């Protein structure tokens, strides 16, 4: 069986409702993976990728060990900087030709895109989707 097929079989088998806990084992459920794949269009193609994600979360979780009682949370690491305000002048644009070169397909100075969004197929349909 291909690695991909093995991975899909693994995912189908991982139906159990393991709670996603940030402490302890840090397991991520299939639902979360699917949700993330749909939202961010990333491909968790293998068990290793998910394991890496779990490790990354565990690493970040160590922040919780810091005692932040009574400390005002920051909004951004830039919060002590001034937000630069630009004057309302026209200084850019007029480079349609250059920008259109980035597009695989162009029709009369328009970018060409597929008609609407194409939803990711659900788990189980993915094998055939990969090959299409």
């Amino acid at each position: 069986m291909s690695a991909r097929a093995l991975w899909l079989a693994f995912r189908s088998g991982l139906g159990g409702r393991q709670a996603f806990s940030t402490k302890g084992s840090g397991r991520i459920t299939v639902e979360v993976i699917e949700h993330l794949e749909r939202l961010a269009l990333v491909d968790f193609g293998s068990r290793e990728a998910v394991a890496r994600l779990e490790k990354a979360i565990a690493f970040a979780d160590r922040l919780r060990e810091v005692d932040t009682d009574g400390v005002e949370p920051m909004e951004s690491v830039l919060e002590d900087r001034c937000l630069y305000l630009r004057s309302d002048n026209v200084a850019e644009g007029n480079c349609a030709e250059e920008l259109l070169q980035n597009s695989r397909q162009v029709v009369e100075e328009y970018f060409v895109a597929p008609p609407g969004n194409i939803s990711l197929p659900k788990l189980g349909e993915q094998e055939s989707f990969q090959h299409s």
Partner: protein
Amino acid sequence: MAAPMLRRVGLGRLWGFAWVDGGSGHRRGSPNGSTSSRRREQSSVAQQPLHTAQKPRKGGHKWAAVVGLEIHAQISSNSKLFSGSQVSFMAPPNSLVSFFDASLPGTLPVLNRRCVEAAVMTGLALNCHINKKSLFDRKHYFYSDLPAGYQITQQRLPIAANGSLTYGVFMGNKQSRMATKTVRIRQIQLEQDSGKSLHDDLRSQTLIDLNRAGVGLLEVVLEPDLCCGEEAAAVIKELQLILQALGTSQANMAEGQLRVDANISVHHPGEPLGVRTEVKNLNSIRFLAKAIDHEIQRQINELESGGEILNETRSFDCKLGCTVPMRDKEGKQDYRFMPEPNLPPLVLYDSASLPAGTESQQVINIDQIRDALPELPSATRERLVRRYGMLPEHSFTLLNEVGLLQFFQNVMKETRAEPKKVTSWVLNTLLGYLKHHNLAVSESSEKPHL
């Protein structure tokens, strides 16, 4: 948490919907990332069993409708919100697009001062509290006319909040009396507009023009204090007049400078709020009123015949005169809001807090802006009533017709006739004539000289 009605399910982008985007509701597949996003994740579906479980009673049982509006107004500025490309309605496709607007790597947003001023002016005119510190966030969703894959908006802390808009509604059958009502403003936020999609169904493709991508928008979120199409129309008209008086937006609905989405639900007074639907693609005030009233009636009919209301997005078909569901394949949308990492908080000052020795171009003083505010429509109307002794209703009509006020004032300058006579002539004779011949004031050949 506020009333149950305000639990929203974001429907996000509407996939595969094929019509030509005339600049109106297409991108607004998302009922916005304002405070509603906090409730976004909760489904209103839980409400439905309540309705289907009730036996519908015909007649006798009154219905109340709840209408909440979300308005997007294009800011009238020379350049875009975060880039220096020009803002213009008509231009060759993709000619007003900078590298940042096209989301090329290595580009960064730079905030346009004029857009901030426009937001503060609008907030002050709508009696809002101006947040001295506001934050920018990213709202993620995929669509071809959003090159970055996210929109920069203000979800956590918008620039203005908690205001009010007072408006007049004609009462009675003869439209002779005027009542003043108030709608609360939940918040005003700055955000980016998206590009335009032209759907080519024949070749199964979409053509993208990014000229509009990155243009500054003011999103004005109203509390659901309205109850019918007429009130909504009056609110939008007043908002248009205010934005035009301020010069912050030309607010022309036909040109897509003002876009309105309506959230509508019905319930029996005293009972919990109903499931709400969102109506989009409303590009004129008249259609707005029709669509809202139609949707209210549709919901009532549906519930009275034992059906249920789905939490969905609908579009107004002006030819059919009714709302139709918009196709969407995605249910709940998760926008994964995150702080915009490239922009520090936006800090505004007033005269008391103005830091010494700072470059005036880099600071915005709320008090200074407040002092420089032009006369608002409500003040203009009061002035007309005081000075010329006309009825409030007349002052509304004078302001609602484009150019009519100017004409009236020109006549008053030239004539020694009594103001009441002039008012009557302008409003009855002239306006009647214009309406009959379907002319705008500017098109009429009447000159102010008597």
